[in-house]
């Protein structure tokens, strides 16, 4: 999944968003001194290689009324964790689902699933649904609500030579 220098310039040019003009790829091409067809081909190739997950809108959960967001965490038996993680990730109210290392004795949980809803009651019910799905392979779980956003900038690719 290597990217070359031209791919990198396209990424830098688009990581804050696609231009809202009738020919956005042509606009990017003009800014970089490329042909529009090169930009489209490269974006398409990056999508095929998984460098780009998709070209899409990211809705703001909060602004759309999904103000309750909880990080559910679970201590799932290692031999069942991958299979159960895939099932939890497939739930339509789970936006992110990861297996992570425990940090014993402070942190016994290895499966993380972000759950979204309009109220904490709704999120709580969804958490119960995850608990039921995990069954006896899950030894413990809890939920951490975010009480404040302290920073949110997303990933930014540093400009070359300015690390």
């Amino acid at each position, binding site marked *: 999944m290597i990217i070359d220098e031209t791919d990198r310039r396209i990424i830098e040019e688009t990581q804050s968003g*696609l231009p809202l003009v009738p020919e956005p790829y042509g606009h990017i091409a003009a800014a970089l001194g490329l042909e529009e067809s090169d930009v489209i081909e490269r974006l398409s190739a990056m999508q095929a290689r998984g460098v780009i997950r998709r*070209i899409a809108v990211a809705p703001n959960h909060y602004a759309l009324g999904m103000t309750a967001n909880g990080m559910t965490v679970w201590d799932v038996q290692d031999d069942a964790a991958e299979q159960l993680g895939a099932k939890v990730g497939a739930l339509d109210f789970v936006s992110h689902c990861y297996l992570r290392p425990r940090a014993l004795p402070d942190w016994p949980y290895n499966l993380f699933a972000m759950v979204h809803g309009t109220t904490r009651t709704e999120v709580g019910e969804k958490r119960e649904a995850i608990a039921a799905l995990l069954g006896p392979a899950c030894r413990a779980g809890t939920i951490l609500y975010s009480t404040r956003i302290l920073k949110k900038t997303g*990933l930014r690719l540093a400009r070359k030579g300015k690390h």
Partner: protein
Amino acid sequence: MKRAVCDIDAIDSRIINALQEGFPLSTRPYRDAATQFGIKEDELIARLARLKKEGAVTRFGPFYNADAMGGAFCLCAMEVPKDRFDTVAGIVNALPQVAHNYERDHRLNMWFVLATEAPEGIEAAAETIEAETGICVFRFPKLKEFFIGFKVAA
């Protein structure tokens, strides 16, 4: 917290729901995408601009996979004493490697994501935070990611 609800109409909802799936790679992609909503190219552009401005849409464009670019992500957590919380948040947020940071209601009360171009950058950033704050940074790198079909119904 951000404000609770944006004022969106039925067409906005359809745009948000449909364009979470993807967007055309063509010369006139807004024109091509607009037809499914029964609107013209310029109206789709205007609506997307307004949805971004009003905050209903956080971002519109390519979503890059940091792993594929040779980058690295790591979820981290700290147990920060209440009386030092804002000072520590300032130190953590000052690092450009910190992509986002949340206060959460747990003994581990500060949760942030480090995003760096090279894997070794994660360890360097975590060590910097530990040195500057004197607080242990728990590292929770992902071992496996489960791909999801999550969509926000607008």
